[in-house]
């Protein structure tokens, strides 16, 4: 089976094994432009590992990952980012010793070489872009605050902001609302709904209500393999899914 060019991302026969244990096993799926794909599945199904493989954090044992017809598996993490893939981690990963402004500034897609970084100037376009993004992720009042002092939910937003500023074509979010208060959750859902409009998104999420809200298609993973794929209604009705979820 050849990768099809009309997909933004095609994952084919993706496999990784850790000392013989196949965490992801012959996995294939395709993401179209402007699609919001949600990956669900029980713990240990390999969801996070799939994201790790796509963004280069873990090296695949076998398979293909093509993004806009570029093979991602051969690229370094930073090259994958420059190709247009952004990744948010499960636990909020921000630079605690830096301010919110500086966190966003580091993610600003300019001056990414050593000398570029040395010569980087905080000029007006940079400032206005950072302000804009900060507004979008509800942090415009906290720009000079150290990230360490943010609440858990605010850190999640900051990380999303750090992705947005790169303007990726494919955004991968690992449990973006985990550990948030109800109010934060509502705000985040609204934020996500806004940002998934003009790009493709892969989301890992447990909250079914939330999944129903945003998903174009849902992929159910089980033991490193695709168990079911389709619309939310389709997978919810799939007996295999019901067995895996209820059988436990």
């Amino acid at each position, binding site marked *: 089976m050849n990768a099809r060019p009309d997909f933004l991302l095609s994952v084919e026969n993706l496999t990784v094994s850790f*000392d013989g244990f196949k965490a992801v096993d012959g996995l294939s799926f395709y993401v179209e432009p402007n699609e919001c794909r949600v990956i669900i599945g029980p713990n240990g199904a390999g969801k996070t590992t799939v994201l*790790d493989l796509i963004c280069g954090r*873990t090296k695949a044992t076998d398979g293909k990952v093509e993004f806009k017809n570029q093979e991602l598996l051969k690229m370094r993490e930073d090259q994958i980012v420059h190709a247009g893939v952004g990744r948010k981690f499960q636990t909020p990963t921000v630079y605690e010793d830096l301010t919110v402004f500086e966190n966003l500034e580091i993610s600003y897609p300019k001056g990414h070489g050593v000398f570029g970084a040395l010569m980087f100037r905080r000029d007006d376009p940079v400032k206005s872009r950072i302000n804009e993004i900060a507004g979008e992720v509800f942090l415009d009042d906290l720009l000079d605050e150290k990230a360490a002092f943010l609440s858990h939910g605010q850190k999640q937003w900051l990380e999303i902001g750090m992705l947005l500023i790169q303007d990726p074509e494919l955004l991968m979010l690992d449990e973006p609302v985990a550990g948030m208060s109800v109010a934060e959750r509502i705000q985040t859902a609204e934020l996500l709904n806004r940002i998934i409009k003009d790009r493709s998104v892969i989301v890992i999420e447990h909250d079914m209500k939330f999944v129903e809200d945003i998903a174009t298609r849902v992929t159910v993973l089980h033991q490193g393999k695709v168990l079911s794929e389709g619309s939310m209604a389709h997978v919810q009705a799939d007996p295999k899914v019901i067995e895996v979820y209820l059988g436990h």
Partner: protein
Amino acid sequence: MFAEYSMGELGAIFAMQGFAGLILFSVFVLMALGLAIIFGQMGVINMAHGEFMILGAYVTYLTSNLFATYIPSLFSIYFFLAMILAFFVTAALGMLVEWSMIRHLYKRPLDTLLATWGLSLILQQVYRSVFGAREVGVTIPEWMMGSLPLTDMIEIPINGIFVMVLAVGISTAVYIMMFRSSWGKQVRAVTQNRVMAGAVGINTERTDRLTFGIGCGVAGVAGSAFTMIGSTGPTAGQLYIVDTFLVVVFGGAASLLGTIASAFSISQAQSIMEFFLSGSMAKVLTLLTVVGILMLRPQGLFALKLRK
């Protein structure tokens, strides 16, 4: 270089050289085991490892003097008692150090390096003040210093055999303790996730202290054994530190088997090169090879592949 020798001579030399390699291997294993526990399992960079070894050597020295003065009739077996004492004395010091210093630093592994370096300076000065700046001569029972002539050419040093037996014995003991006992499980649980281990009811403080103490104790036994083949002086411990760390790192820090495999490969490489090259160049080449391989394979020889 071998043209002028008979086959018999060559065979004998290679046999003995192989044996020399095995002795070196045992020496490396003994040096590295304590550190493999402290550094490999606990992540503490103990720069005072050599000083703990020397403490074991000084304990042996004191024991030998005691026996020579008070019970000379039993002098020929004092060494066994000395090793046991060395274990407990260094383990006790190790636990004291863990309690006063190391336990505050588990989250800052690189800082343990600095603190233990400070400790090593202090220990060196204490040794110097107590035992004098000069090396002390540890008298080894006569039977341990001889050799077993196998053939006319091949002679096997008894202390070499002793070191080898000790290395095997201690490795086995450490292996059983770390991987076959419930206590070992606790140690591994604590080192992998301290908070979680505490939450499931493991007394993490006690486990840490005992682990560190045992690591130091093993170093003490090694130091005690090395009085047979090396020198005992305030600064002698520093000689061991580079080799020891390289052995542990090269093996893949968290793996005991790796430490042993690495001790084996480094010792064989060094022993072979020493035979064909001059001593200094052999040492340089051995170190370079190890560093080179580590650059290609930074996780060491044996490492678990894990999801990060």
